[in-house]
């Protein structure tokens, strides 16, 4: 927050659960150094993170299991530090250092 430079990165952890880990090398937790600003110089938001994950972290080509029409697909909950992202502003939430972002697929089996 103290006059960050253009090259700054934000260290965060990104978790996947409910089967989404399959799309990310079967790893539930990833440490990510996210560029602090997007291509337009705007602060990194969750929308930017989602795009970044698709381009840099996803191993599986089935991107439609994660995003649909450039948004997170229906049936995936996004949690910012363990709270539903709607409490934080959804895609517009600006990512802070050491945030934990969790993507959970809604389950239906039983």
């Amino acid at each position: 927050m103290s006059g960050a430079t253009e090259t700054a990165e934000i260290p965060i952890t990104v978790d996947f659960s409910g089967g989404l880990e399959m799309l990310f090398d079967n790893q539930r937790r990833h440490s990510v150094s996210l560029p602090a600003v997007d291509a337009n110089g705007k602060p990194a938001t969750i929308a930017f993170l989602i795009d970044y994950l698709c381009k840099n972290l996803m191993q599986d080509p089935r991107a439609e299991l994660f995003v649909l029409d450039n948004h997170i697909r229906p049936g995936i909950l996004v949690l910012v530090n363990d709270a539903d992202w709607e409490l934080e502003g959804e895609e517009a939430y600006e990512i802070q250092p050491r945030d934990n972002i969790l993507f959970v697929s809604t389950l239906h089996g039983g």
Partner: protein
Amino acid sequence: MEGDVESQPVADGTTAATDSVANGCSRRLTDDEFDRYSRQMIVPGMGKEGQLRLINSRVLVIGAGGLGCPAAQYIAGAGVGTIGIIDNDVVEASNLHRQVGHATSRIGMKKVDSLITHLKELNPLPTYVPYPFQLTPQNAADIISKYDLVMDCTDNPVTRYLISDVCVLVRKPLVTAAAIQKSGQLTVLNCPPTPQGLVDSEYAPCYRCCFRKPPPPSSMVSCGEAGIMGPVVGMMGVAQAGEAIKILASALHMPVAKNVGDNNTPEKNLKQPTLLIYTFDLESAVGPYSFRALKMGGRKRNCFACGENSTLTLEGIKTGNPDYVQFCSAPAPVVSLAPEERITAAAYHAAKEKGELPDHLLIDTREKEHFSFGSIQGAINVPFGKLLMKAAAIKRDGGPATEILPAEAVKSNTPIFVVCRTGSDSQETVEKFKELGLDNGGKRRIVDIVGGMKAWKQEVDPTFPYI
């Protein structure tokens, strides 16, 4: 422990005056009840009052499977007075590793009857009500309105949205859980239930508030396909019972009194419920993220079911509005193979037996765990996910398309047959191969085996270990 409790019986009757809070259900416990429930009644906060509330409660368990068995066992053991159970399935051997309310001796029996047999043995005191059929938009409201609390122990989104919508309209608290493979989820909704259309941060959300839209069907797999670890679904079912017992024994589902200036019960109001998620990691012991408690949002102003301008009604539901099946299905990827690109399992087998297929390749796209139990002779396993990954890499990096094929198949124009588990991945695989040009402009046949290994078992080899 044993002697301790018996030697200091709770002075029955001393709390009679306060028991009336639970709908005037004050009465003495019978000796049987007293013996049976003593260990939970002495838990702080439970007491005779909590026990009587349980005895006077009615709980509906929807689904008598991996969630419903443990959920029903624990509420029956705890003494919930009336327990309704809905399910139209019959017990199969493959259920028993997780559906612990059934038994080997009851394979083939209706699950509802099997589970009630077990529950009566566990505790004969409750009244058990069997519903050996499916919950439908037509019967849901009549059944659900007879109960105080609903446990969603089903296995599909169509029923989950139906249950929640009816619970909103007939105002019942809903304890919902789900599990698949190595993950489980649990949450309490609509508790206490508040009328549709009242949107204020004071009110608890419904299932649709938390899970606005179902995932596209293509991203969903059933326990039959993906597998399920018994303790994962069992833990969720037990936790459902725990939540139900808490809610009923403490009357958390009773509407919060209004205009009383009563600010000392905010914790009782689940206006922002917690979603518990459990992940069972086969590669490590209980890790720091095995259990997580996530904070969900409250009731949504624009919720289709409980929100401000909701048009959802019981009459509408009965007459097919909304259409739950359509809501939960998405336009499936259109795969339209020509008739000559498809062959039945029986026809493939016959052609092979007659020597009409001397040189061909059979690719089995099931997951390797499925493949490991058995396969058609000569089949080569290329799991569907890996195959898609390779196909994407070839498209992106432009390597030779034949890289996707096993080495022995690179020889051109050898026909390729594709088989999967139930017949849909194989069709997509045929499409993908054609997209990559592996049909050599039509010179190489690429054929889908209709209905997958499921059809193989039905049409060719009844002893095949199909999972």
